[in-house]
């Protein structure tokens, strides 16, 4: 009764020691000179490295607490759509970025860290309305987005162009020269084009509704195929 028969599983399944970057660093957990009677390996096995599932609830709690404390400068999530997965990023002021898959979502998050703030977390609460309205748009149940938009990533004339672009309704198209004219610089057609090409919030600020004067569809940040899909979706409705 009084004898200890504790068993210890030294090779805990799923236990992994992360690779270490420091050259010459002795891997912990290995019995070094055989002088510790396996103590270091028992120690390493005493707390298995938690798997990613262990962090799901913790990360959700972190995002909620960060939001409540005013520390979540950029909340993001990915939304599936007929033109591929879209990254949406929302600041405390509104939707600041919609990114297509071809832009590389990781790279876009890095750009946001540099341009807005590195306090970036995946978080549902602030991004839910964007996801819901995009879904309604793609399923033909929404013609106007009712969202706060944060256009801090567009400056000067580009910002003026985007402000005009927000007035172009669902199902309508304008030409680049119409847009330049509306923005107050009728000769700045190329600049109007580059404002569309660098639109930080495509779809919601509808740069897909800008086409060439000759009727061809022109360029699009998400690729010409995505633009064709969106124009077809709106003309069918």
């Amino acid at each position, binding site marked *: *009764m009084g004898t200890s028969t504790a068993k210890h599983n030294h090779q805990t399944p799923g236990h992994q020691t992360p690779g270490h970057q420091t050259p010459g660093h002795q891997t912990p957990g290995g019995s070094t000179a055989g002088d510790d009677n396996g*103590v270091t390996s028992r120690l390493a096995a005493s707390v298995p490295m938690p*798997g990613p*599932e262990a962090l799901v609830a913790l990360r959700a709690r972190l995002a909620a607490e960060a939001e409540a404390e005013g520390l979540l400068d950029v909340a993001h999530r990915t939304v599936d759509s007929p033109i591929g997965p879209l990254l949406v990023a929302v600041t405390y002021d509104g939707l600041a970025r919609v990114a297509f898959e071809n832009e590389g979502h990781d790279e876009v998050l890095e750009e946001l860290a540099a341009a807005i703030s*590195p306090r970036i977390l995946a978080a549902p609460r602030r991004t839910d309305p964007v996801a819901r309205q995009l879904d309604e748009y793609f399923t033909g149940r929404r013609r106007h987005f009712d969202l706060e938009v944060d256009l801090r990533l567009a400056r000067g004339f580009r910002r003026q162009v985007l402000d005009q672009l927000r007035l172009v309704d669902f199902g309508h198209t304008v030409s680049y020269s119409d847009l330049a004219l509306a923005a107050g610089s009728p000769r700045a057609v190329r600049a109007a084009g580059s404002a569309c090409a660098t639109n930080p919030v495509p779809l919601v600020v509808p740069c897909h509704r800008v086409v060439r004067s000759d009727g061809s569809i022109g360029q699009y940040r998400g690729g010409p195929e995505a633009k064709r899909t969106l124009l077809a979706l709106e003309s069918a409705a």
Partner: protein
Amino acid sequence: MEPFDRVVEEHGAVVLRVCLALLGPDEAHDAWSDTFLAALRAYPRLRPDSNVEGWLVTIAHNKAMDALRRRSRAPVPAGDGTELSPSVGSDGRRPAAGDDPAEAAIGQLDCTVLAAVRALPPKQQAAVVHHYLADLPYTEVGAVLGTSPEAARRSAADGIAALRVALSPTGASGLPTSRPRPRKR
């Protein structure tokens, strides 16, 4: 500067491991959350050449010490107050919960070993946990503890020596929690 998301992705598991080792499962989640919230607050001011993992473990260490101080001020429940968790099995391991995937992903903790680690003097305990569980090199362990790398290495070596004695089958003296109380036959 990397999006903070990626910092959580890369170092979240190690920080949880440190919190589990220092505090046990019941308080580890709070310490993890406190750690990353504090880190998020300070993150924009972090120097670009910093060792992010060492920085996070430093914060986690401080949060765990805060939790231990709070615990020592709190009324001691039944028992001698040194248990890592009330739900430790007879083999010294905390059983993994069957249904909860988050609990299952934490895996089984060896409470016999952790009780011995927690019985170490604070410097040795921290040096052992940060080197052998957080996988930090001694330069970073020293930075966490505010000592030189050599002193950190000595603390870890002293800690391992003490654990070797404490965990040997014949030398478990001084560790009442690792040995069942003798019963009357």
